[in-house]
């Protein structure tokens, strides 16, 4: 119990700190609103002369996009701080403390990400309601979408941690981060629901973890409990697989660490 309490304290401190600087999110809200505004033009043009594509109306696609963007913009990119720590050698200060480095980063990441997700969901719903003028979402979806997003964020944490670990081998990990981001954009279903993809791409996405970070939470927001529970076992399985992978790679990488001076 004592062990868990210290991570909860990290969570709480980051949470309080983030709440004190809510105004920092204004810039992010602008970008968020801008994306949705631009996309409403693009999708309107795509939907001209059509009412439904692959079971999605224009309004549903816009709400779907708002939810995917909510998850996408909520992820706190701690991998760049982590890479900086590894390169500068400051990681030595974290490693000799009586806590797990992985769980320490997780507590801070999940705290900031959850706050962002809550604020983005409220702000995004408001904006998208103005743009589309309709509400094709189940109310219970907000609860199950939020839970599914939480697990999506947990899965994403392991990928961010892996990105941070690349600093043990490479000077700059921004290119890897870009490419990871693009996997979420494409096979993760950020820009459009997976149902839009050609059959062979759709089959590939089933075997990849990315759709459980973006697509599944967004669909759970729209459709509620049924969708959430349908995907939940595989989402958990992915968390388990990548969690173990991160633990093994981290143990291996730390052995490479060589810090000089003090």
């Amino acid at each position, binding site marked *: 119990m004592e062990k868990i309490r210290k991570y909860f304290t990290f969570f709480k401190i980051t949470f309080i700190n983030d709440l004190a600087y809510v105004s*920092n999110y*204004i*810039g992010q809200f*602008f*970008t968020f609103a*801008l*994306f949705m505004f*631009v996309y409403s*033009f*693009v999708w*309107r*043009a*795509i939907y*001209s002369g*059509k009412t439904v*594509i*692959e079971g999605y109306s224009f309004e549903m696609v816009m709400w779907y996009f708002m939810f995917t963007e909510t998850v996408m913009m909520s992820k706190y990119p701690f991998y760049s701080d982590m890479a900086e720590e590894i390169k500068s050698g400051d990681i030595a200060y974290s490693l000799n403390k009586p806590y797990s480095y992985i769980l320490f980063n997780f507590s801070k990441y999940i705290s900031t990400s959850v706050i962002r997700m809550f604020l983005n969901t409220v702000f995004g719903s408001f904006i998208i309601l103005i743009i589309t003028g309709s509400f094709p979402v189940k109310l219970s979806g907000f609860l199950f979408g939020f839970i599914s997003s939480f697990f999506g964020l947990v899965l994403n944490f392991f990928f961010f941690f892996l990105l941070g670990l690349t600093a043990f081998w*490479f*000077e*700059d990990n*921004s*290119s*890897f981060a*870009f*490419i990871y*981001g*693009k*996997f979420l*954009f*494409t096979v993760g279903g950020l*820009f*459009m629901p997976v149902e*839009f*993809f*050609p059959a062979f*791409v759709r089959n590939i996405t089933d075997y990849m973890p990315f759709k459980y970070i973006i697509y599944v939470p967004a669909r759970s927001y729209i459709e509620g409990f049924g969708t959430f529970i349908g995907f939940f076992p595989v989402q958990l399985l992915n968390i388990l697989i990548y969690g173990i992978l991160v633990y093994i790679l981290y143990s291996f990488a730390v052995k490479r660490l060589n810090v000089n001076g003090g």
Partner: protein
Amino acid sequence: MKNLKLLMRYFKFNISAQMEYRVNFFIQIFGMIINNFFLLFFWWVIFSKVGKFGGYGMEDIYLIYSVVTVSFGISMTFFGNQTRISRIIYTGELDSYIMLPRPYLFHILVSRISLSALGDVIFGIIVFFMSGYAGFLNFIVLIIVCTMGAVIFAAFNSVLQSLTFYFGDSTAFSRVFPEAVLSFSMYPETVFNGIIKIVLFTVVPAGYFSFLPVRIIKDFNLYQLSEMFFFTVGFSVFAFLFFKHGLKKYESGNLIIKRL
């Protein structure tokens, strides 16, 4: 001419500095090329689903992406400090520039390069040859309009970042507008209409960064090329004057730094 020499010297110096980490250099460039190809996925799916719309097909998208990435790539490669001007002002780093006998804004802009932006240029050239508009003359036009686009983008960033002289740290604010230029630029012109189209040729100059250059390549027109040229020159002069005027409000922080 002297300024052009300065630009080339900085470019060579920065490239050789980056080549110290050779693997990283190539990873960044290839990473950006792969990254950009991913962006085309959206259009590939959409066109396979609904066919052409608004008179645009995949070959037009290749051209739009080519214009935007080559312009952005040239801009960030040669004027790599354009997104750091605000920081340079409020940290007092500006002192080290205003002591040297070169146009301050120009000197700040060229003293840094972005490596991954070279990947954008290479990607842009590849997709240009995949578009239905590839050809020697069109390629020359592409380079000309993209060079002007690169200058416009750098001037736009300079104006936004110079707001720090007037209102204090404007980093957050000055990040949103260039983001807007890029977001709007990546889509066909016909998608936008009404008042938004006026905005895109004024407040957010995505029109001059993407729509007009694409029009010039698709259907070469000397009048439109001149329009772009005069906008580029006019906007650059405005950016320099805006910076110069702001500089009068600058107070040194007595920061001592070593620029390497």
